[in-house]
């Protein structure tokens, strides 16, 4: 199994801040695995994901993708990283430009990264992959429901056939029934496209349903790391225990247990 991301002793301190927002943090992401970065607000999970994507420079430390440092990349190498790693954000109301049509939103990464690809057919293909009618290409984001928008955001991310999808709270802004649909879609697509998934989330339910391995972050540090099932069944760090105990849980549900797992 090959290692995609290697994060080595990465720290981040924002301008004017007295303390580090992150780190030092080290982790690796293996190809084909689904990794969850679990944390509450202020835990540094979003900062870490932005640094991994090369969208934010670290104060110290190195992030490598397939052995190449992701920061200070130029030209073809930078484009290559962008193609291989794509991002989906939490709020589909904010992440789609209100002035672009869905077709152009989905096509944007293709136009930048894959010049010469027949964009129109690929967009239709991508919309179909996220279970949307091709006619959606002509609509504006405000004409779509929250779930439909998040499907558009996912279609857009899949366009360049990435190896890794980084999803930052991909369902937190959605209604419960829509959450379940988007989760199912993500799981299906991840399998179908052999995607490596990095899920950034505070929601243990989502993590439990989507990810093999998890890291738990608290105050900028990784406090626990392991296989998701084991980590949830037998948390070691006091913070992880508190987090698990805090989640309002549903009583056992005999009918559905089988369906989930």
């Amino acid at each position, binding site marked *: 199994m090959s290692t995609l991301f290697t994060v080595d002793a990465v720290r981040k301190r924002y*301008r004017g801040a007295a303390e580090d927002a992150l780190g030092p943090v080290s982790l690796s992401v293996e190809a084909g695995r689904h990794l969850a970065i679990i944390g509450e607000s202020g835990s540094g999970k979003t900062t870490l994901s932005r640094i991994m*994507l090369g*969208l934010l420079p670290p104060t110290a430390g190195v992030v490598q993708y397939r052995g190449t440092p992701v920061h200070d990349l130029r030209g073809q190498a*930078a*484009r290559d990283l*962008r*193609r291989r*790693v*794509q*991002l989906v*954000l939490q*709020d589909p109301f*904010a*992440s*789609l*430009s*209100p*002035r*672009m049509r869905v077709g152009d*939103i989905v096509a*944007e*990464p293709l136009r*930048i*990264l894959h010049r010469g690809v027949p964009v129109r057919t690929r967009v239709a293909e991508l919309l179909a992959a996220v279970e949307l009618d091709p006619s959606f290409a*002509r*609509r*504006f984001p*405000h*004409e779509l429901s929250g779930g439909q928008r998040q499907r558009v*955001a996912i279609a*857009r991310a899949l366009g*360049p056939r990435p190896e890794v999808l980084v999803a930052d709270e991909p369902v937190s802004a959605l209604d419960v029934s829509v959450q379940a649909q988007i989760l199912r879609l993500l799981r299906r697509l991840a399998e179908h496209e052999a995607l490596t998934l990095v899920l950034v989330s505070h929601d243990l339910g989502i993590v439990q349903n989507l990810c093999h391995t998890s890291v738990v972050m608290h105050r900028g540090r990784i406090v626990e790391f392991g296989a998701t099932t084991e980590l949830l069944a037998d948390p070691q760090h006091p913070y992880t225990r508190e987090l698990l105990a805090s989640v309002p849980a549903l009583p056992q549900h005999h009918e559905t247990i089988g369906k989930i797992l």
Partner: protein
Amino acid sequence: MIALLRNPSGLVGVLLVAVVVAAALTSLLWTPHDPLIVDPAAGWLAPSASHLLGTDALGRDSFSALLVGAQVTLGSALLATAVAAALGLPLAAIIELTPPMLSAFLQRFVDIMIAFPTLILAVILVTSFGSSTWTAAVAVGLGASVVVARTVAPELRRARSSDYALLATAAGASSGRIMLHHVLPNAGSTIVVRLTQILAGSALAEAGLSYLGFGTPTPTPSWGRTLAEMQPQIMTRPEVLLAPALCIVIVVLGFNLLGDGLRDILDPRTRRSTP
């Protein structure tokens, strides 16, 4: 355009501006009298069939003067706004794109420039380069350019720090592409609305400067100067001041309402349907 006419303020704005544009265009081809012909014998005539709005102290036809004045007003408003946009928009982009230190310095510079009264700037320019409609318009444009920069820069920042701009970066878009495809379209309505407001402001400023004698020089008719020339009559025949004053109100109100209408229709979220 049809959407603009469906919008109430847009419709009124378009109509008012159209009246002014029509007056300016008509005056290029035809006026009832030559507004420059002086006939002291016919001074201060009351409105009649031949002189719709009467004549001024020198016997020039007031209606013709107002028609020609529309040219001056529109021309100088457009020039001032063009200057404001040509300087202000790049300045806003520079403020937004440069490193924090330089950006902060530029912002303070803009703040200082905003505090500097446009009127005084105009007076300085006019006294150094001579009184002309165009000098006054450039002065007004210079004054407005910093206002454009000040109001557009935060809009650019908002669009640039948005999630969709972040996603574009993550998709490998260059900062130029992000500016062109994401930031400008999303900041666009603010820019357009701001510029129409500056059209209104410039028209008013031209009238003000001409009224004070720093704008359009004699004998070219200008609404502001017409108003000034009619002033001696304010105690005896106040109604003669009404026509030039009303013209100024129409053009300022017209551009402002047009801006409101544009703001409403330029946002796809408030547009009713898509083709």
